[in-house]
């Protein structure tokens, strides 16, 4: 079945993808990896460098480059000047910016409902 078939729902990226952030100097990279590689083209379409830049403009980010890795169905975003001085000079508790992978994962996307993951509660928790 095509990735586009089915009723579309708007969810945070976190419901369909995962990722990790790392820093070098004042530059941050965040990977974005759909749980199901079939979703990769939808993410390429919707998670543009411009939208990601919007998530980090309040931190002074000056630019975002997006690298596409279709063979592993992953995107890599490189965000410049986002760390307010980086681990050297930042006043942020998270000077490395490592928590920002989950800021990216808060971005809304529209995907077929069947791809949406909901948290599986551990036994014993309501």
């Amino acid at each position: 079945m095509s990735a586009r078939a089915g009723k579309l729902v708007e969810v945070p990226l976190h419901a369909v993808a995962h990722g990790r952030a790392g820093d070098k100097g004042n530059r941050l990279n965040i990977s974005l990896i759909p749980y199901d590689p079939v979703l990769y083209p939808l993410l390429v379409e919707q998670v543009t460098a411009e939208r990601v830049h919007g998530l980090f403009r309040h931190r002074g980010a000056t630019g975002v480059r997006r690298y596409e890795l279709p063979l592993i169905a992953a995107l890599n975003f490189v965000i410049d000047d986002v760390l307010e001085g980086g681990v050297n000079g930042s006043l942020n508790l998270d000077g490395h910016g490592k928590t920002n992978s989950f800021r990216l994962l808060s971005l809304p996307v529209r995907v077929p409902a069947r791809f949406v993951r909901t948290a599986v509660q551990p036994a014993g928790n309501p």
Partner: protein
Amino acid sequence: MTKRRSRDSKSAEAPPSSAEISQAVFRVGNGAGFSGDRVDAPGPVVDTLIAHGGPAALFFEVLGERTVALAQLERRRDPARGYEPMLERLIEPILARCARHGIPIVGNFGAANPPGAAPVIAALAVRAGIPDLRIATVEGDDIRGCVDLGRHEVYEADAGLDPQTGELVSANAYLTAQPMVQALEKGAQVVVTGRTGDPSLALAPLIHHFGWSAQDWSRLAAGALAGHLLECGAQVTGGYYYDPGFKDVPDPANIGFPIAEVSADGGLTVTKANGTGGVVNAQTVKEQLLYEVHDPANYITPDVALDLTGVTVRERGKDRVEVAGVRGKPAPERLKVIACFEGGWLGEGEVSVAGPNCLARARMAAQVLHERLRRRGLDVRARVDLIGVASVHDSDSGALWRSHQGPAPAEVRVRLAASGLREDDVDQAAREVLALLCCGPAGNGGARWRTTQRIRTQSYLVPRSAIEHRVTLAAARELA
């Protein structure tokens, strides 16, 4: 509906027997991914390497960008120190077993003082009854005094940072795998280095074992990729990964550290220590593959430049992932040097509020703190966070917490951070949080504050010809 399996995870074909694999592969295990890592992690890795019986090595990566500078400050206070503080705890449980089974140990745990770390390891060896243990030290990464950094280009990712102002604390080049290879060729059983390329730590024993040439870019790329995937320890085996209900990991309190199985032609499978928690799957490997990577077509190491755009990741059975398709390109002409400078002071203070109207009380505390710094004319740059509302994702101006419209949290921790070149001003700023205990909003408590010295780093690109290394080898009995 929840889809649990990714489409690129194929069920395992008939797996080769472990004896067959042992004939063909060299195993590289990782014992630590940063300074501060779990000290009981190396044991199960070594157990697994021994159980397989084939040729193997163990490496430790403990140097973050600023770690050498912090170690250098430690060495200033005590000239015998300046190496990895957890060195003995990391090494002692596995040293004798590695020696007995011919598993060399390679580590950048020399930090700012490799010749200081060697006698510490030697003493452990003598105590363990292996006084003939051959320990090599690699020096030459510390280029203070022999290279004029002002004449070299600033590494591009740092170009946007403020220029350095304070005194130089450390300047270390990322050495290649070759000095470590030389040490192994001399028969070293433990190789102590300072700054080297992180992936080079795993690459060196592979070059030594397989006899790869220093220009065999495709094989060097496979070995460096093994190092890249393993150098952060548990980050490829389920650490820094679990997200309950979405990405679940068995027994996260006992995550097994990674092992790479590498063949002579550069085949690479990532797995982990037996009898441990954690997981190795396509997702953990993809996250680590892109960790701290910018342009995937140009991931630079001192030994080889990697092109990751052709890489494929395939699950080959439980906790086994095959990584193929990496391409190698010639190593860079220049080596990266990280210089660290004294960077002024950082003061931080925190205090909590909780219960009814706590958000309004927290906002008031933030306003009062900013007003206090203005009134006192302290020469600092400052920000206030409302932890529980917005902090780590926020900007220095507090754009997110100021515009927060959501439900009030049950508790908020107010945090002030201030930096500057004058220690006293910075400390006085941090102490304004303490003063809230009697002068702040109702019901605040739990104040903490501290002032610490900052280290600023700046990276440069320096020609290889400017950097010389030395390898020295001695038996433990001569060093202890």
